[in-house]
């Protein structure tokens, strides 16, 4: 990843911090990442912001062994496609879980974590990661 300007972090911060997506009030479809148009309803659609519960299941996963510099210190880490209970899928790291324990169908929940630090100016980016749902008591992380 090349240099990311502070405004580029900031623009998406709310969506990444609170798992904000969008919803079409005409047909009820939900979207993540948020969209500006409902592909089904087009002009008839009415897009509004919606906050997802953060509960979901692992749809697919991988263990990343070879990563870009800013993620290197986390390797091997679990990257997953999580299917939210509201329908959309998100790509996220799975934490508080050993690589050998992760499986498809596992219940997970969103948590707020540091994503990476960039060299140089020290902008730290935060956002959601997911952890096994039954680990919810481990708030000390």
């Amino acid at each position, binding site marked *: *990843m*090349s240099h990311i300007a502070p405004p580029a972090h900031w623009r*998406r911060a709310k969506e990444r911090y609170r798992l904000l997506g969008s919803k079409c009030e005409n047909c009820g479809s939900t979207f*993540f*990442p948020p969209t500006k148009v409902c592909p089904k309803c087009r002009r008839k659609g009415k897009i509004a912001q919606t906050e997802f519960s953060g509960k979901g299941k692992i*749809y*697919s*996963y*991988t*263990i*990343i*062994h*070879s*990563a*870009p*510099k800013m*993620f290197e210190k*986390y390797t*091997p*880490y679990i*990257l*997953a*496609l999580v299917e939210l209970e509201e329908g*959309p*899928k*998100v*790509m*996220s*790291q799975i934490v508080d879980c050993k*690589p050998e324990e992760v499986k*498809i169908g596992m219940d997970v929940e969103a948590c707020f974590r540091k*994503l*990476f630090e960039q060299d140089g100016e020290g902008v730290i*980016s935060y*956002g959601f990661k997911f952890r096994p749902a039954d680990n919810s008591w481990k708030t000390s992380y």
Partner: protein
Amino acid sequence: MKLYKKRDVAIISAAATKCGEHWDKGLKDLAWEAGVKAVEEAGISGKDIEYLVVGNMSGGMFVGQEHIGALVADFLGLNPIPSLRVEGACASGGIAFFQGYMAVASGLYDIVAVGGVEKMTDVEQEHATTALSGAMDFEWEAYFGATFPGIYALMARRYMHEYGLKKETLAKVAVKNHYHGSMNFLAHFRNRISLDEALYAPMVADPLGKYDCCPISDGAALVILAPLEIARKYTDTPIIVKSSAMASDTLSLLKRRDICTLDATVHAAEKAFRLAHIERSQVNLIEVHDCFTIAEILAIEDLGFAKKGEGWKMCDEGQTYVGGNLPVNTDGGLKASGHPVGATGVKQIVEIVKQLRGEVERGRQVNNAEVGLAHNVGGSGATAVVTILARG
């Protein structure tokens, strides 16, 4: 209603450089090498070329060079013809071909050169990986720690879960591609590998190991197109472009209808076969975009040569070798032959042309091949181009 009549288009010459780490050659040198070979093969002069389209993914990030259309036209001595660089990540070459094909088919130009070039090894691998990750949705994939092998690994894992694919079959795809590549003088890797080597190689993104991933290569390719009616003036063996079709899908994997299907490939293939009036059973060989071993299996299915969930069986049974029912990636594919991203789509077409003319090395020539198909993908499947070629 269409207001024009489409012309038939033929490829009159096709050439590619060797893929690999060309420390002695820059982007211009590679484009020059492929260009000169193709022009000489067609027996034309640079002055006969009326339009140039070049596929290039990221000259800017790989060698700090943009404005590739004019650059290549200048270096090949083609000024002042119109020249254009097109970009669609790893499908840039396929898109360039699609554009060049339209220019001739529409009747606007007669002799059109379609090139692809990428110089990737001047930067550290870390930087090259960064450039390539621009082909996925940066804000919602790469930002969260996704890598390209990681994205294809997510597809592979889900596919294994749904259809019972084993890692051993993925390894067999790599073994087959290295076997084909070993007979290809222009391939990046010409070594054969064993099943165990592939199976127990270091992990990149579980379940994909080192041999499931294509390399970073330098390379270029160029083909010259002409209307079919005058093609025989330049060659005794014109290769007819039966069709070339392109489709798009969501850039990010997370928005896909089904992560085990590349819908862009499905749409492009359906259109290409419809326009070509050719059945799947008439196709003698295919070049598919195997940036990762799983991608070859998905391509076989999405192009319509196997039902969803069953393509891996063809690979498992060895039907995809030269001599099998459906030879796939007879040049070694992206895996062994190399993946100079912007050049790959054109390089695949060069391979099909050579196969249809019966000109490739012994051992990997498909006997009496009449029809071949090339399939080029951008990113994790946001762009796909399918081109069907036949012997004239």
